[in-house]
């Protein structure tokens, strides 16, 4: 099934995000989860803690499908990623 994503203009640390390939400024967004490989794994085979995850905000260019990804960083009330829905 094809998922429908909303489209966004995005600012990262106050600077508009552009596609490095085609310069478009409209992106679809999804959240991506990567499991972080724990260095414990080699040493401690009995470690049963669930893997930690790295959560990335992934922005796919609407025109050429180039993907750019950012981790959300929050300092007090401020966050590095601001999205404005455009449709």
């Amino acid at each position, binding site marked *: 099934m094809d998922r429908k994503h909303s489209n966004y203009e995005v600012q*990262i640390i106050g600077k508009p995000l552009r596609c490095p390939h085609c310069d478009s400024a409209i992106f679809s967004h999804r959240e*991506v989860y990567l499991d972080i490989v724990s*260095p414990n794994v080699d040493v401690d085979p009995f470690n049963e803690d669930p893997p930690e995850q790295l959560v990335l905000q992934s922005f796919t260019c609407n025109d050429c499908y180039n993907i750019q990804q950012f981790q959300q960083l929050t300092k007090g009330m401020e966050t590095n990623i601001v999205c404005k829905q455009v449709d």
Partner: protein
Amino acid sequence: MAKDLNLEESHIAILDRPINCLFCEHDVFIPYVTYKNEVEPEMYAGIQANYTAVCTHCGSAIQFGEMSNVHVNPIITEAKLQAQKRCLLLALQILVQEKKIDDTVLTLAEEEQYFKVMVLLKSRTNQVEEMPALSCLAIALSQLSTHNIVDAMQVHRIILDESYPGIEPFLKQFIK
């Protein structure tokens, strides 16, 4: 073990060329070894990297599918470096005390002649140019655990949870 000590803010080079963030051009990253989470496999088209570096300034993530050309240089603050040197001396003191190594190693470490320390530790590693004190520490710690003087798992946990401040009191317990 040297690699496990490196879970911190780092400069990264690919094929000896330093990388800068593509978005903000800063050059400090947190490196992660990552693999694809399988919860929603249909969401992961194009994302199969096993190495992810996140820019500490803007959050931009750079992914590499191959790690062999990725060189990570942790940024060592003066405080961290001093802690590493103190821990190295402790680890060597224990090895000397247990008669695993000649005591000239202590003088060499105090004089910061780390390459000579490395020779005495009989290390075959040749990638020590950037952080000789840390490399010596990693080798000394692994020798302490291969000789069953300290518990490898315990050292490993302390490094992960508390970094160097935690190893210092841990090693001190073994000094007679």
